[in-house]
């Protein structure tokens, strides 16, 4: 494996993170907080280290094969989380290192599960960094690197994209990787700005609006209030946020098609309709199911709509306690936690497109039972899905179940109740954040021990990178030279 290029990419990641941290430094200057110093120093050290890494060990060839691309991406996510947590820990605002690391991984992987019982106790620069982690992790730092560094990863840079972008099929919508990455970030920034403006129009304070927009965009779910989104208690705010969560949970190639005026093609994306279908169905079931708890049908609808979009996009914002909801609604919530958002979005989970492929494959299997000699192909958006993609989707499901079962087993050592243990794994592996029971939208992960937190950290990273890149790091054959 070309280790130098991995070091080179990690170096750039450090530089970018060092630069990104300065957003917290600037915030601290505005609010006159001296915690900003930690960000400044960590950022500067990170940038210097990164600069050394890219200058001293500049790779002789920039050729990057799949193995190195996946390893570089997985390692950079671990490294980023490690560097990102230093200010939290060094400033003493999150005194335990594992907690600070948990919080940062949760931020970067856009999970949004927190160990903090009192978020409002953090200084503003810590809060903005937390939200910014969500934003940066949403589209991904490697994609950002691809957008700004020419020739990163040589001609084979698609492998970097494949490791970081979610979904069974990763391709480019424009010929050049660099312009494609820039286009993705352009849309990302544009949508974030739109949400910010809409929230400001509704009268939300700038700092709150900015943090909320960052956390929504990455489908992360970090709030800066203890009551999370319930703190912005108007229908307007909550509806704007709910709608934007759904928008960020949508495949970005849809927006690219809209921008290039290929409307027919855009609305032909089957995943889009499947996603909308799941949302509509879930909202309908929950609304009817919970209508008796809330004063009006509209309130029930509002609660249900917000929560469904929060969970299916794996954002994890909360506007109230759902533990009091009837079991049917909770079941729907758990199921859509697993489904997750669409491929090519900022959301996590199993991905709607994988589910769609599997459903079609199952239908094909049924057809084979009825007509054993039937010849059938699985099609998506009018195109035949390659057998390799179906195979890797099935394997994804197997590995996903495996990791889930193992994590569930390990977290059960903690001896929490079944609902809490089960949903905490579901919520972290799918990057949602809040589960049910003790870790519901009004609860948090402070009650878990170090070991359980480590398991959850692994699940979050595995979920964000879609399992294989992270698992590759543990495969001895990946580190062999030949």
């Amino acid at each position: 494996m070309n280790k130098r290029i991995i070091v080179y990419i990690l170096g750039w990641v450090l530089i970018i993170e060092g630069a990104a941290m300065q957003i917290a430094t600037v915030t601290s200057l505005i609010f006159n907080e001296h915690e900003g110093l930690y960000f400044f120093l960590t950022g500067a050290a990170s940038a210097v280290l990164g600069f050394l890494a890219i200058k001293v060990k500049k790779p002789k060839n920039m050729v990057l094969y799949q193995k190195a691309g996946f390893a570089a991406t997985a390692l950079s996510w671990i490294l980023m989380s490690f560097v990102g947590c230093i200010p939290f820990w060094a400033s003493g605002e999150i005194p335990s290192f594992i907690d600070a690391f948990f919080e940062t991984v949760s931020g970067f992987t856009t999970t949004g599960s927190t160990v903090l019982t009192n978020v409002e106790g953090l200084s503003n620069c810590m809060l903005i960094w937390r939200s910014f982690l969500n934003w940066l992790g949403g589209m991904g730092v490697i994609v950002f690197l691809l957008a700004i560094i020419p020739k990163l990863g040589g001609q084979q840079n698609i492998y970097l994209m494949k490791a970081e972008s979610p979904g069974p099929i990763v391709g480019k919508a424009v010929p050049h990787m660099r312009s494609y990455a820039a286009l993705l970030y352009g849309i990302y920034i544009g949508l974030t700005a739109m949400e910010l403006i809409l929230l400001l129009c509704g009268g939300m304070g700038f700092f709150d609006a900015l943090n909320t927009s960052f956390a929504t965009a990455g489908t992360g779910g970090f709030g800066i209030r203890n009551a999370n989104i319930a703190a912005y208690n108007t229908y307007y705010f909550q509806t704007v946020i709910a709608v934007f969560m759904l928008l960020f949970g949508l495949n970005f190639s849809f927006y690219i098609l809209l921008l290039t005026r290929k409307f027919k093609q855009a609305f032909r994306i089957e995943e889009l309709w499947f996603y909308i279908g799941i949302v509509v169905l879930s909202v309908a079931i929950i609304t009817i199911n919970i209508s008796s708890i809330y004063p009006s049908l509209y309130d029930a609808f509002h609660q249900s709509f917000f929560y469904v979009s929060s969970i299916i996009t794996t954002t994890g914002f909360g506007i109230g306690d759902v533990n009091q909801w009837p079991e049917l609604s909770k079941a729907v919530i758990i199921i859509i936690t697993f489904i997750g958002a669409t491929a090519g979005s900022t959301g996590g989970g199993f991905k709607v497109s994988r589910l769609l492929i599997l459903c079609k494959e199952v239908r094909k299997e049924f057809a084979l039972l009825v007509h054993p000699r039937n010849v059938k192909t699985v099609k998506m958006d009018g195109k035949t899905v390659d057998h390799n993609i179906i195979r890797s989707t099935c394997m994804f499901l197997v590995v996903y179940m495996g990791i889930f079962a193992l994590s569930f087993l390990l977290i059960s050592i903690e001896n929490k109740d079944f609902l809490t243990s089960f949903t905490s794994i579901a919520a972290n592996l799918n990057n949602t954040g809040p589960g049910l029971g003790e870790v519901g939208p009004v609860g948090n992960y402070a009650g878990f021990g170090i070991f359980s937190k480590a398991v959850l950290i692994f699940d979050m990273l595995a979920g964000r990178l879609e399992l294989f890149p992270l698992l590759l790091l543990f495969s001895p054959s990946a580190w062999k030279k030949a």
Partner: protein
Amino acid sequence: MKIVIVGCGKVGSSIATELNSEGHDIVVVDIDQNSVKNLSDSLDIMGIEGNGATYDVLIDAGAESADLVIAATARDEINLYTCLMAKAAGAKHTIARVRNPEYTNDLYRVKDQLGLSMAINPELTAAVEISRLLRFAGALEIDAFSRGIVELIKVAIPQDSLINNKKISEIDILKGKVRICSVERDGEVYIPNGDFVIQGGDRISIVSKPEIAARFFRKINVSIGRSRDVILLGGGKVSYYLAKTLIKSGTNVKIIERNAQRCNELAEILPDAVIIQGDCMDQNLLLSEGIEHADGVAALMDYDEENILISLYINSVSKAKIITKVNNTSFDNILDRLNIDCVIHPKNLTGEYIARYIRAMQNTVGSNVETLYRLNEDMVEALEFRVRKSSKITGIQIKDMSLKDNLQIICINRRGKIIIPQGSDVIMPDDLVVVITKHKGLSDLDDILSRH
């Protein structure tokens, strides 16, 4: 530029590789998912799976806003149809790979309907390149104008040449048939007028017909390393094209081919070549056909291994210039270490050729330039214009024109008749005029006149 390439075979891949390195926006299309995936994963380009001759797939690939669509599938008919469809989708220019010479000859009749800027034939391109190496091994650069009727040839002048220390106007060898159009001296390029004095060591470019150029060089003591007796091993398409051009320039050509039927065909279409039916891998046959005394040998058989092996053998028995055709480019670095003079990759040449064409095309968007070449390390441009009726320079003797500095009219093609212009010649509408200049970005023939 936005370029769509239909067909991801060897030609398509080589074009994509060449153009990708120059930063164009490239979309490749192929009906075979694997070829698309392999190519688009290994280059920074986008891949579309589907039949590139259909409208929807072309639109998917962005043909409606593409500057160029290149059709490079395995079949001529599909390529031409793809160009037609691409034109209908709104592509500005198209290039088709057309192999069959019977089609190539008629293409000009449908050029406009197809939006066809160029038809490329990989075998022909390879043959042209090989013939260049065999005819003018000593030439530094050769570019063809007016569909190959005239060539611009750059050579180094030896210290003992007849024309040393002479003004250009005093050189009367083949006067009116040869023109010295640029001189490179100490890294500086001059577009000389009649008073310019040539010195030994200068690198001069001359324009003339190929056969006349050879005579001119002989007279001025420039050794051009021309091969007079050439043996071609293998009688495929490249051999056929190559034999045809070599025979035209007066070279003796012998073709050795295994397949008796193919030998008959070759004998029929190449009456002036000596066709030998036999196994090229037979040492005795080669020796009896005088391989030791040939000036040039081209190994053009189907298998790379045979070509390489036979080239190594000939190198050990003969002083001939050896050209080896190799299709697989993956092991180039190994070939460099072997004792082989000159390796030709037909498919790669096509890529380079198209890339060169596109480079020129970029510069000529919106002008009436027919062909553009960059010469002398890009310091000089040679441009071919079609003269319009409205042009200001028609009907005036060249000596009466006030041309810009560092600019010369070096050739006029009047319906196939080549004129190397003298002061008394006149340009007429519809002529093809070649201009050589150090000014960049001329877009119209009238721009050659100085402003005052």
